[in-house]
């Protein structure tokens, strides 16, 4: 970038993070640095020679008259090896490096480069490429091993294609070294490096979109078995404070069968990011056995950091997600919380004096949300591979009221809805996902996968369980009106069965070392086991066995604990227990059957 030609101007007015600048020739969306500290910001509207800029850092003690500089490009991120395992702020400043350089607090005007220029990467060129071949944008030039888990595929930047003139041989390279040259249609020669830049507000190109075909396995029973999410799909996790949105997202980040996980802490707590930073390097990816941090990247704009950078943070996250998608990976991006992003939008729009439409939010809230979620998807990449971005956004409705604007607009956009309930959380039923309010539009597609890979009975068993939970709600209403005596034995057994489903299947503690992850196999086994016990009991009740006698069977207490007694590798033990449990029922059955035959 040619710094001498940067446009120069001055500050006219400072209104918190919104600053009016006089900078002739500046473009909308252009990055600027303002004041003697050189604070970073971005132009959001133009009016004659004046422009409004939103500033990513605190503007305290900045004055009118101080200098302004236009940087000539929009907010962009660096895309290349060295991203994974890192923690960046909302505008991709490397927080680890900033800590080492500047100490505990984030200083203003400091902007170290996101990717480490001193680091050497071992580059292996793609075998199918040769000089003088035509090459398209997004083609894989070669690869470097970014972490033990992730092979980073070096791509031709999206805006360059033409003829490959030169490709570097296998060897060690710094980020800034040239690893190839491409001559475009205009004859211009581009030197390619291990990294390139891309503006965050512009979706990266792909060949075509494809439908999701396979569920994302998260190891959480209520999610995978009841409200499945497909790879490449979009999902919202709304819930009042303390209901478990962050825990759900951390669990997905830990256990999902994704190649890359991008976790964006958007306007939330600093300690929650520390929790990930501390625990992920010690936890093992259940699929590769490698430390989880080897596939994870964090973007952190905590609640006390400047709100404008918060608005940018989710775009930084999604752009990096698209970049790994373009390498042919299944990426999961988690945003906690999209409500804080929407609030940042509201704050800026308020300062601009834009007309609020609902609860202070600007009219474009819905379209911005939709455009953001639209960047999720499963695609054919430019290089003819398949890649996906699955997007999971937490929503924090004020007062837990799902009719508020952010929740209601989001609900119209997403495919899967994991609704958290305060009542369940208060009773310590975790994950506090409400099986009535939640939904998945992709049960059909997920069923194909389950039937093929796990068990043909999956969809049937799932429906049976949901049916029982619905019956349970109805019957409980009756009990609350007229007492339990009003119910028949069969009805009371439904209540027992539903309680077993809740405790034995739905509840799953993130903190329990055995149960924190449940393989699809174990998920189905537990569900099937409990429903089989319920069915066996229902038969007995028809034979006239009192419900009391069944409820007091000691095997039921063990049934509730099964999930914590057997881990995902102990499927055989689980099967043995199943035999044992059903035998107890058979015994009662023969007892009663005999009694029935003998005249009293």
């Amino acid at each position, binding site marked *: 970038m040619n710094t001498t030609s940067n446009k120069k101007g001055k500050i006219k*007015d*400072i209104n*918190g993070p919104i600053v009016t600048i006089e900078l002739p020739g500046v473009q909308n969306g252009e990055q600027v640095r303002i004041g003697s500290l050189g604070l970073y910001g971005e132009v959001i509207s133009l009016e004659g020679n004046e422009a409004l800029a939103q500033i990513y850092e605190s*503007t*305290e*003690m*900045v*004055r*009118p*008259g101080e200098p302004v500089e236009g940087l000539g490009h929009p907010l962009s991120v660096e895309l290349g090896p060295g991203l994974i395992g890192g*923690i960046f702020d909302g505008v991709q400043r490397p*927080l*680890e490096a*900033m*800590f080492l350089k*500047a100490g*505990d*607090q*984030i200083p*203003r005007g400091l902007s170290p480069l996101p990717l480490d220029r001193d680091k050497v990467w071992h580059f292996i060129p793609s075998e199918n490429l040769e000089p003088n071949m035509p090459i398209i944008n997004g083609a894989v030039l070669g690869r470097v091993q970014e972490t033990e888990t992730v092979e980073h595929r070096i791509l031709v930047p999206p805006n360059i294609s033409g003829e490959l003139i030169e490709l570097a041989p296998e060897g060690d390279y710094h980020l800034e070294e040239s690893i190839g040259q491409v001559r475009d249609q205009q004859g211009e020669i581009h030197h390619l490096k291990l990294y390139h830049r891309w503006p965050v507000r512009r979706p990266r190109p792909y060949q075509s979109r494809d439908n999701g075909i396979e569920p994302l396995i998260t190891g959480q029973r209520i999610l995978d078995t009841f409200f499945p999410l497909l790879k490449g799909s979009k999902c919202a996790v709304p819930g*009042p404070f*303390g209901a478990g949105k962050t825990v759900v997202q951390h669990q997905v980040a830990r256990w999902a069968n994704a190649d890359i996980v991008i976790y964006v*802490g958007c*306007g939330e*707590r*600093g*300690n929650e990011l*520390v*929790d990930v930073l*501390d625990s992920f390097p010690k936890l093992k990816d259940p699929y590769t056995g490698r430390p989880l941090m080897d596939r994870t990247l964090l973007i952190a704009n*905590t*609640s*006390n*950091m400047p*709100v404008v950078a918060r608005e940018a943070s989710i775009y930084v996250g999604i752009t990096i997600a698209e970049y790994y998608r373009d390498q042919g990976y299944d990426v999961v991006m988690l945003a906690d919380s999209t409500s804080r992003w929407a*609030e940042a939008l*509201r*704050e800026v729009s*308020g300062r601009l004096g834009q007309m*609020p439409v609902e*609860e*202070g939010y600007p009219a474009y809230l819905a379209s911005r949300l939709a455009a953001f979620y639209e960047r999720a998807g499963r695609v054919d990449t430019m290089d003819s591979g398949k890649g996906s971005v699955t997007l999971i956004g937490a929503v*924090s409705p*004020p*007062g*837990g*009221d799902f009719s508020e604007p952010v929740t209601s607009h989001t609900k119209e956009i997403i495919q899967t809805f994991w609704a958290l309930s*305060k009542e369940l*959380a*208060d*009773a*310590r039923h975790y994950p506090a996902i409400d099986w009535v309010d939640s939904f998945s539009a992709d049960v059909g597609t997920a069923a194909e996968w389950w039937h093929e890979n796990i068990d043909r009975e999956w969809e049937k068993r799932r429906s049976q369980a949901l049916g029982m939970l619905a019956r349970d709600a109805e019957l409980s209403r009756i*009990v*609350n009106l007229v*007492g339990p*005596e009003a119910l028949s034995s069969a009805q009371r057994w439904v209540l027992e069965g539903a309680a077993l489903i809740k*405790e034995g299947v739905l509840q799953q503690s993130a*903190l329990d070392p055995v149960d924190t992850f449940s393989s699809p196999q174990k998920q189905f086994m537990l569900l099937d086991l409990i429903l089989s016990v319920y069915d066996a009991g229902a038969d007995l009740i028809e034979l006239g066995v009192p419900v009391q006698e069944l409820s007091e069977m*000691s095997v039921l207490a063990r049934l509730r*604990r099964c999930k914590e007694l057997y881990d995902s590798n102990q499927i055989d033990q689980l099967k043995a227990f199943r035999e044992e449990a059903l035998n107890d029922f058979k015994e009662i059955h023969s007892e009663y059957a005999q009694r029935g035959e003998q005249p009293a």
Partner: protein
Amino acid sequence: MSAKEYRTASSARGGLLTVANVPNIAFGDRVHIRDQQGNTRNGQVIRSSDEEVLIQVFEGTSELDLESTWVRFLDEPVEIALSPEILGRIFNGLGEPRDYRPPIVSSLRRSISAAAFNPAARTYPKEFIQTGISTIDGLNSLVRGQKLPIFSASGLPHNRLAAQIVRQAKLPDDDSRFSVVFAAMGVSYADARFFQEEFASSGVLGNVVMFVNMADDPPVERLTLPRMALTAAEYLAFDLDRHVLVVMTDMTHYAEALREVATAKGDVPARKGYPGYLYSDLAEIYERSGRIKDRHGSITLVPVLSMPSDDITHPIPDLTGYITEGQIVLSRELHNQGIYPPVHISPSLSRLMKDGIGKDFTREDHPHVSNQLYALYARALETRNLASIIGADELSTRDRRYLEFADAFENRFVRQSEDEDRSIEETLNLAWDLLSTFPPQALTRVNETEIAKYHRQSV
């Protein structure tokens, strides 16, 4: 640098003063305003252009006239002077002494609006603090560096509870006490007096810094007060290596002051007239608690707030709950039953508890015992509800056991006296007394080993 002085005030309205034709004034600059009586008021620049500067006047703009008002720009942000001498002192929201003693003289002055902590600089809070209160230690444990508010309402004993926490808080096997920073916003004379006497009688006064803004003091000062207090706390924690407990009361008065100023500025309201940035503003305060790598000290934050009309979904408790690491919720119902402390456990939560309790921290059964009590109490409250509809006589024996549990739990576990300092061991044993009224197979949240070891029927 020469401070600039102007007499070009062009409007005064609700705590805001506009001054025309003052070039190059810094955003956030501190301001002195001299009125016609010659009295000085304090202010801060909240918007600045060459044509016009907008000043928030802490003491308000009443009785200002535009003609004879002089405005001096000090060319510095709002700061606080810091030295070890702040311990034992009382200040107002601007950091000026209100104990009739001389101001702090120190070359160390810090802006009260500190830059955010780098998340990469934090360490995860893990050290269990024993408050001696069973509902907190047993079920909603506090750890060093946590922010755990008390959600209360008018007439409930939140001050007594906060004072008891200050008196009793310590690490289980460590007798060193916390340094205390006490921030009072819009409090009554009686409340301020209560805390002062509390600190005096428990002999900690020399280890306390107080920042006090009374109900009849200027509301705008409530906006700077918690920031003054936290800057002092950061100094004690990270410069002087102390473990600091910050008690702030009442955050509702703080938020109301913020709303007052926001309304005067014409900011777009979000809910109930509170500005959309209330969340970020509160977060700037609450996120200043924590632990920092390679620093010995810590800041543990216990804000107290009253829920307007006992409504937990009101924006103030709601946004607080979205920022803090849990909440201790007080209940009018328990209070009316004469139970102290009236902690309603169902909506209460400590998010940092998971890493600070259990084997090696408190006792191995602690996490499960806590879950079990929660689950039983939730069920017991449902049963109590049912009993109130159909009558207790209609309940099954199983259900009646839950009813009895609810009563025992509230009267033996929740209830304790103000000078009762229970060790965590005592709290957990008490929990097992209650759990043992159920047969082992009814307890599915504790494991079989724990039952064998602690259940009274098994022992």
